[in-house]
């Protein structure tokens, strides 16, 4: 999995590309969130547009990322969720946990 980051109005937008699956991307997601939090970034927007595959381990890391950030008083939100990722969150009722956006301006304004 590749990641890239940019900051817009205090919101750290982290773009994830590739797989977030067991042994490939799951621990990378955990590391990128840990590092962002260590750097004091507590408004995080995960751009999922180019996530090609995610499994239960990847979903677990998304949940872990959410918990890590919110436990430190921050907010983590999602943008550009692919349909299949939405489906996986929906069947496990996690879609109600995350704030999900399609428009970046709207997402940034929500923090």
């Amino acid at each position, binding site marked *: 999995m590749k990641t890239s980051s940019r900051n817009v109005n205090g919101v750290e937008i982290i773009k994830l590309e590739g797989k977030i*699956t*067991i*042994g*490939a991307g799951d621990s990378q997601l955990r590391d990128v969130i840990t590092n962002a939090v260590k750097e004091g970034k507590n408004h995080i927007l995960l751009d999922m547009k180019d996530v090609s595959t995610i*499994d*239960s*381990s990847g*979903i*677990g*890391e998304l*949940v*872990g990322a*959410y*918990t890590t950030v919110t436990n430190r008083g921050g907010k983590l939100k999602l943008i550009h969720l692919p349909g*299949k990722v939405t489906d*996986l969150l929906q*069947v*496990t*009722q*996690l879609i109600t*946990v995350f704030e999900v956006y399609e428009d970046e301006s709207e997402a940034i304004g929500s923090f």
Partner: protein
Amino acid sequence: MERRSERIEITISSRFENIELVQVIAEHLCEHAGVDDDAAHWVGMAVREGVANAIKHGNRLDVAKKVNTVFRLEGSRLSVEISDQGTGFDPAEVSDPLSPPNLMKTSGRGIFYMKTFMDSVDYDFSFAGGTRLVMTKMLEQQTES
């Protein structure tokens, strides 16, 4: 219409990077059976979860241990048997990921996904040397417009 019959067997060592090989076979088999891409994807996902569990929980990431998968396609019925060389587990002890105390856990959704995407998911601990997971799915062919 010809009744399709196919059997494919693959044995992998317990490395996560091998999961994709098994998932691709599942999706390919579904597509050859005339199933649409979406349906094939979800069957592939269920197989992925089963193989991942066999590697992680069954074989405890011991690369010397194998995961064996047998696909059987009889007409529209697909069965997938995934066997590991571990010590088994108690399915009754698998927690419900939808239960409020478990909702925000970082693990424990694999079996739930398998049950969501397949018609049946059963475990056989009776054979020597590990766990055999058996999943079935009646595949729905795409109708041509």
